[in-house]
């Protein structure tokens, strides 16, 4: 068969343009795939997608309690009320305060530890295991331990402070220190996790860069600020954004340790939504608050997506 004949023979067998339905039933469509994802899809539909739409609807109603009969569609009333709701914005402000203390605090502490861990000292694995204990521990158990450690009279922290000449602090009883105490606990609990992420970033920096800088006469401080830190930018960015997202979702330590007190000083937004929805049973209004929270978190997520795109990464996250 000649060469041109071969082409003609091939084109004769090219399938005609098929519509979507025909393509769906064609053999190249491995329909068994639908069966494989069916359980996960049904789960997503019932426990995430439907609740998501339902949540938006709820936020336009005055739904109270789990009983649906009394719910009325009230349009944007919840949102109008929300913008003038002082208690909600105080919860937002408390959350922002927590975020402002927690995110830089935990990032700096964990970076310092990671820098030491990166010195290739012996026994680093043992230390990593120890630093990770708070990370894996339950929030409730950790909270209870810290309630006793922070006790104003007999707590260990005040005992240590007294030894170095600092007057005892009523950590959890004073509105001006309660949030700081929560942040200290949260930092203590999470630095092990962030340290591992920093360490991965540090180990990705080629050794030659530091050696070259040393040959050029740079001292350690200069090397850190001019070479290490800029090269860690993706890690810094990742930790900052996930830290902000996590901070806006903090719940367990507040629930266990302070219950939002004293005098509302630790009433963070998720705790506020929880009490609105499940203690006051004001579910429609609580749903509208949840959507405002979603907007904040979504903005942070978009910044992250934008940054990853700029770094030339594909994919959604």
């Amino acid at each position, binding site marked *: 068969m000649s060469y041109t004949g071969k082409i003609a023979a091939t084109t004769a067998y090219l399938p005609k343009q098929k519509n979507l339905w025909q393509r769906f039933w064609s053999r190249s469509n491995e329909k068994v795939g639908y069966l494989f994802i069916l359980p996960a899809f049904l789960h997503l539909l019932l426990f995430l997608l439907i609740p998501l739409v339902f949540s938006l609807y709820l936020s336009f109603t005055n739904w109270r309690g789990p009983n649906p009969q009394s719910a009325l569609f009230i349009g944007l009333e919840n949102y109008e009320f929300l913008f003038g709701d002082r208690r909600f914005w105080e919860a937002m402000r408390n959350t922002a305060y927590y975020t402002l203390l927690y995110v830089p605090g935990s990032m700096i502490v964990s970076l310092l530890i990671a820098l030491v861990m990166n010195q290739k000292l012996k026994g680093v694995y043992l230390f990593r*295991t*120890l630093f990770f204990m708070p990370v894996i521990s339950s929030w409730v158990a950790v909270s209870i331990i810290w309630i006793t450690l922070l006790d104003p009279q007999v707590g260990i922290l005040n005992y240590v402070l007294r030894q170095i000449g600092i007057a005892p602090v009523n950590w959890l009883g004073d509105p001006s220190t309660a949030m700081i105490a929560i942040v200290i606990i949260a930092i203590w609990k999470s630095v092990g996790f962030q340290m591992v*992420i920093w360490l991965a970033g540090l180990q990705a920096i080629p050794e030659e860069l530091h050696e070259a800088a040393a040959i050029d006469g740079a001292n350690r401080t200069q090397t850190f600020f001019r070479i290490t830190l800029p090269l860690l930018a993706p890690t810094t960015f990742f930790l900052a954004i996930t830290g902000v997202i996590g901070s806006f979702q903090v719940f367990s330590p507040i629930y266990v340790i302070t219950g939002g007190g004293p005098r509302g000083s630790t009433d963070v937004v998720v705790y506020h939504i929880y009490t609105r929805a499940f203690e006051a049973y004001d579910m429609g209004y609580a749903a509208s608050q949840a959507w405002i929270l979603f907007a904040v978190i979504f903005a942070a997520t978009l910044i992250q997506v934008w940054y990853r795109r700029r770094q030339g990464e594909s994919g959604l996250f």
Partner: protein
Amino acid sequence: MTSHENTPFKVFAKIAGYTVLIGVALTMIVPFIWMVTTSLKEPNSAFAYPPQLLPTEINFKNYEMLFTLVPFGRYFVNTLVVTLFTVVGQLLITSLAAYGFARLNFIGRDTLFVIFLATMMVPYQVTLIPLFLIVFGLGWVNTYTGLIIPAISSVFGIFLLRQAFLGVPRDYQEAARIDGASEFRIYWRIFLPLNGPALATLAVFAFMGTWTDLLWPLLIARTPEMRTLELGLAYFNSSTSAFRQTNWPLMMAASVIVMLPVLFVYIFAQRYFVRGISLSGVKG
């Protein structure tokens, strides 16, 4: 090169490094030591001043009391049941979906996968209230079903296993197909056994997440006999409880009981845990 010699500066840096690490390690560990030793004390000696970090006495009375005074045994069984079913369910459902998304070509696959991924951006607080209402409507409040079913799948798990399945050579699948194996058989007999570490990573994460979950059991478990350990411990500490102010040793014994299984799993599965963090963490 001088970098391998022990110059005075290097020695100093080493000492400084270990000092920092030991200081941090103490900060991390002391609260746990305090928890264990306090759990072995008499109720009154827990309030001794200065605080006694090392045990002055050892008695297991508090642990006995836990199981007689409070139904802690029941909490333990509840947590075990919920965790077991959630972990097994997650492994099964997410691995099935991961195989579909990674190794089968069907129309709309990539669109569906993007929808799955996009839902990871939704914080759980947004869906929490309607999710509770749905579970309430289904009559699942205060049941194991209500505690387990909503957590039985996870998009993170699908993502993690899909990545692992994509790494299996195409030939394995093709050869099995030529031998006449069904897709389910290929998934069950080839892909699951080949991806043990990825499955273990997901199992460890699912275990930790379920064992220490507070918010969902708080909404679903309405009577004491449905409480999980984490929830039981939280109630134990609540302002209405008499123990918060008066009986630290009992509270600490309860905390030890809650933490032990997690610690146990962590120590034996540390490898998978750290692996999972690097997977979920630094992708950029």
